[in-house]
């Protein structure tokens, strides 16, 4: 079923909308949630919450891209769920490894808790991503948006793990430089 047809089902308040969403994007959402939560039950719960939030958002929202819309909701809900749990007992998920990598990048720049406008930062990130080669960008997104493992990214892009790791390191360094150059207090 086409995405526009699924969205139309939401607009007509048909419960088939959720079934169609689950059938087409259920596994995709579960993977995103599980990379963050590292727990099947929590991930399934999170994906169900995604359906609920989608049901509550459409209408009035009509997403330009339904897949990205779902992915974003799943990611946000999973991060919120993780935060609400006891983080001291957090399992070593791909999220926690990716988090450590970014935290290390920021810590080498003497991180502060200074406030940075979210829209400004989002625009800077969009601009920065545009400067990257397609491959470097996909590796970065795979790691820090989807929280995929290094080996998973390497398999998907058909490159060596070594190349993936190096690309990530270089992109993190470039991002740090870029943000500092644009006046972001890290």
């Amino acid at each position, binding site marked *: 079923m086409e995405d526009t047809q699924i969205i139309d089902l939401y607009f007509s308040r048909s419960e088939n909308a959720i079934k169609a969403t689950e059938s087409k994007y259920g596994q995709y959402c579960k993977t995103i949630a599980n990379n963050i939560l590292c727990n099947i039950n929590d991930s399934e719960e999170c994906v169900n919450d995604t359906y609920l939030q989608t049901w509550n958002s459409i209408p009035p929202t009509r997403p330009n891209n339904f*897949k990205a819309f779902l992915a974003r909701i799943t990611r946000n809900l999973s*991060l919120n769920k993780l935060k609400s749990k006891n983080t001291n007992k957090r399992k070593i998920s791909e999220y926690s490894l990716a988090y450590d990598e970014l935290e290390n990048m920021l810590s080498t720049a003497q991180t502060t808790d200074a406030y*940075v406008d979210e829209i400004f930062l*989002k625009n800077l990130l*969009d601009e920065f*991503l545009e400067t990257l080669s397609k491959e470097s960008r*996909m590796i970065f997104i795979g790691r*820090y948006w989807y929280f995929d493992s290094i080996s998973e990214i390497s398999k998907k892009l058909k490159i060596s793990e*070594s190349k993936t790791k190096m690309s990530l390191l270089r992109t993190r360094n470039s991002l*740090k430089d870029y943000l500092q150059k644009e006046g972001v207090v890290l």
Partner: protein
Amino acid sequence: MNCEHLIKAIGDINEKYILEYADIYEIKKVYLKKYLKQGIGLVACLVLIIASVFTLPMLNLFENQTVKMQSHYFDSYSQFVEVLPENNLLKNISLEKFNEVAFIGNCNVGNNDYYDTENYSSFEMVLSKDNITSEIVFTPNSNKDVKSIAENQSLFETITIDTTVVYYSYNIDEEYYEALFMYDSDLYDVRLEEKDENKLFNLIEDMIK
């Protein structure tokens, strides 16, 4: 700004980038369906079954590869060089801005900072002098076959410098030369933001002198 702000902001990026990565799955599915329709699916299944019979006994060889990759970061160049193996070449390299040398070699086991190092057969270090940002990534059972790594990284040109075979290529998109070579049983990955390949050769020549 802290890490949570950054992760949240990454979540808000333009959806075209989110889909760019997600679309890898879509392409695979389309191709698979196409081939199955053409009747190649059955052949592929048979090949898989036969391949499994031969490769299953080899799976035990990879038990150790379940070890997770670990990273360690350094705040200064001096801290970084302290952990390099003796007689390393990196100490003498003069790096220009943005240029990097990665070293893949055996780890100096015994340093308290690197617990469980016995589980790792090699490590990689990436050094960017001006940023003073360095990293060691421990990799279990890393492949040290320079030719296959070079092919993986699309470094198809070769040159021999003082009996050392160097695999290299120019990255047109990002405008840098990358070279990979084995020297003294260690693997080096050099990136140089130069358009003149001779500068790359000169750098490597200096390294292996």
